[in-house]
């Protein structure tokens, strides 16, 4: 424990602690292992963005004699995210807990997805420049990536059915944020992404020529505000022309 406070980035110390946890009958340090929240006392609060600390947290959670309900882990990540939106590790942990809860049927995907959108919108509006939230935001992208979800969820109409409605709502919300933050690359990038999804998956009911034109205009702006990634935007435009 002392070594970790000095060297929180050394894999092997975390590994050794994990080994102790699983092999030493009452150790290491019974002080806080029973409840990972005991960590908040010192080290955890200081190192809450350390990827190795989160990794160890999962080891602790998995090894608890009486498993802690995942809903309380979800609440924990909510607290961490609300305290600091720029905590990619907490967003990540959230994605894992949610997937697990959905696949076990312990949480209704439709309702909890709405909660996710609320949290994401709060974060977006609080710090539109922070990457963490924009990478987490494509829940629609995530719901649609069949490989990440168990079959039972993939086929659920709750997730696929109102896709278009969600895409359109997100486009509206991000557009109003872009109006406030006219140079926000993340807003533009996300708008292109969701509009392309509309084009690809709802081409019969969507106004395709307007959407395409809007995407092309946004890509042009993106090449200016984010010139380093110009090649990627060129490629997206080419794909758009093909669709």
């Amino acid at each position: 424990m002392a070594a970790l406070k000095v060297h929180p980035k050394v894999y092997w110390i975390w590994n050794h602690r994990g080994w102790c946890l699983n092999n030493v009958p009452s150790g290491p340090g019974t002080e806080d292992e029973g409840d990972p929240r005991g960590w908040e006392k010192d080290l955890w609060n200081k190192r809450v963005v350390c990827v190795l600390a989160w990794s160890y947290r999962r080891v602790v959670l998995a090894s608890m004699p009486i498993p802690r309900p995942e809903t309380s882990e979800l609440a924990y990540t909510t607290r961490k995210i609300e305290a600091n939106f720029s905590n990619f590790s907490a967003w990540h942990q959230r994605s894992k807990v949610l997937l697990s809860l959905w696949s076990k049927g312990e949480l209704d995907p439709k309702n909890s997805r709405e909660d996710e959108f609320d949290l994401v919108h709060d974060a977006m509006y609080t710090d539109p420049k922070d990457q963490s939230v924009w990478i987490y935001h494509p829940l629609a992208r995530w719901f649609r990536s069949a490989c990440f979800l168990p079959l039972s969820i993939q086929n659920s109409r709750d997730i696929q059915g109102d896709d278009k409605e969600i895409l359109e709502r997100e486009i509206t919300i991000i557009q109003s944020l872009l109006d406030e933050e006219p140079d926000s690359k993340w807003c533009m990038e996300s708008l292109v992404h969701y509009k392309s999804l509309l084009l690809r998956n709802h081409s019969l009911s969507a106004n395709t020529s307007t959407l395409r034109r809007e995407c092309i205009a946004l890509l042009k702006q993106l090449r200016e505000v984010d010139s380093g990634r110009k090649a990627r935007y060129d490629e997206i435009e080419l794909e758009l022309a093909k669709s």
Partner: protein
Amino acid sequence: MSKELDTLLVPLHVSYIQNLGKNKDDLMYHLTAHLRMNAIYWGLTALCTMNHRDALDRDEMVEYVMSCWDEEAGGFGAHPDHDAHILSTLSAIQILLTQDAIDRLDIDRVVKFILSLQQPSGVFAGDSFGEIDTRFSYIAVNALSLLGRLGDLDADKTVGYIVQCRNFDGGFGSRVGAESHAAQVFVCCAALTILDKLDEIDTPTLSWWLAERQLPNGGLNGRPEKLEDVCYSFWVLASLSMLKKVHYINSDKLTSFILSAQDPEGGGIADRPGDMVDVFHTHFGVAGLSILGYPGLVDLDPVYCMPAALIEKMGLRKGWQALERRAG
């Protein structure tokens, strides 16, 4: 950036690497004993990429590698009398192949050692003490492939574990549940590439995530909202080259960033400008420049992180794409 740092200082880096092994009285030499075998591999591969393969004595290097053989375990330690570990075993194999001395190796025993580290879940442990990580899965796949013994591996089980480490952002973590990190993305992409399972990767999402690793100063970071570091030049670029998307990175800015982290006096490359240099960052900086088509460098195979010509000769080349080599 000062004027002298706008080119790769090849002769300085070569002499920096040559001098590394000479200061055995230096404290750092002993503090890094657990990484000695890896350090030799990094130094040798950087020299090969800079077209100075013979700058270190071949026979001395091969003898050193063989002196790290752990007869009991059937693998290599990082240093004589250290226990065998999968990390140093891969480095030993890579050095012996690069130095055309693979005939010194008891291939059957090494294969047995590596296979013994696979866990019921499909992931590999680093040694008999059991730390697990997708890094070790890649190392096992890489080593078995180099030894022509991939057929001995339970590939489905190996891939099965890696796929479970895939996250919503398209990236991969060190174990099931762990968050995406550029170095873990590299090891998982490379293992899947060697096993011809690139279709398990969500290419558009992952290449977007990788492209967003580049910061305004040109350097690359390993995760969102983190600092840049020269070594990510390799982890990110190598992954992108397997996905055929190296052009998503601004090559001029990244080249300048890597060059700015050179030490213009003693040679070597640091993690970022002004920091202490080391052989790890020197190797991965030069490797990144090679993928970016920097003039005068030799092609590096991003999947195996070894000279491309050697991998091609062994018939192991996969369908990666680097940027075209620029004329000097």
